């Protein structure tokens, strides 16, 4: 049981981080805080993927050692290097994250210009008043 907890508590940390972001997206009234919650959510997903690339037993970053000596036909010990694919996929995900963050902040600036506030309830009150 204790071993199970030690081997799995990293996932629970990501779930906790993700739920912090999720709660911020749902419950906060300030639009900037909602955007920060979205970023925390996406960061939790990225942490999760990166953690799947870990290999125990001293695997390092996936940059091949001594690759250019000889003719480049050295046998590669795949247990020596971490899994490269989650790193690549999360590079793509970081790009998408930055893009969504930029557009969301631009829309927030537009909302602030129009209503002079970023609080959701005040915006709704202004809309109801006409």
């Amino acid at each position: 049981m204790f071993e199970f907890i030690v081997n799995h508590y990293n996932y629970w940390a990501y779930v906790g981080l993700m739920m912090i972001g999720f709660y911020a997206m749902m419950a906060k009234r300030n639009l900037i805080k909602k955007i920060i919650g979205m970023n925390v959510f996406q960061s939790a997903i990225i942490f999760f993927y990166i953690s799947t690339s870990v290999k125990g037993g001293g695997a390092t970053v996936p940059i091949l050692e001594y690759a250019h000596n000889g003719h480049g036909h050295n046998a590669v010990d795949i247990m020596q290097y971490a899994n490269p694919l989650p790193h690549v996929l999360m590079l793509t995900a970081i790009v998408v994250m930055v893009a969504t963050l930029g557009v969301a902040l631009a829309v927030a600036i537009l909302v602030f210009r129009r209503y002079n506030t970023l609080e959701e309830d005040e915006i709704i009150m202004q809309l109801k008043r006409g």
Partner: protein
Amino acid sequence: LKTLSLITGIAVGAALIYGTLDMPKWGDINSPASTHVSAYYLKHSITDTATPNVVTSVLADYRGYDTLGETVVVFTAGMACIVLLKKRKGG
């Protein structure tokens, strides 16, 4: 609204934690993520692309079209920001 959000968050978190019970353990060498296709990239990267950094060779060579699409994403986001933030006449 806050209590409803809290309840929803806790429910989703509990479901996710229930999902992690079947996940491979931390640093497992034989986990599904590191057994099937990633070994191919580690083994063939140097002969296929002559790049020691496997992440670079996968990003820019094996998945070059994906990276091209990535630049399209960044371009679209930049264009959207420019269009949104442009000063309008009488706006």
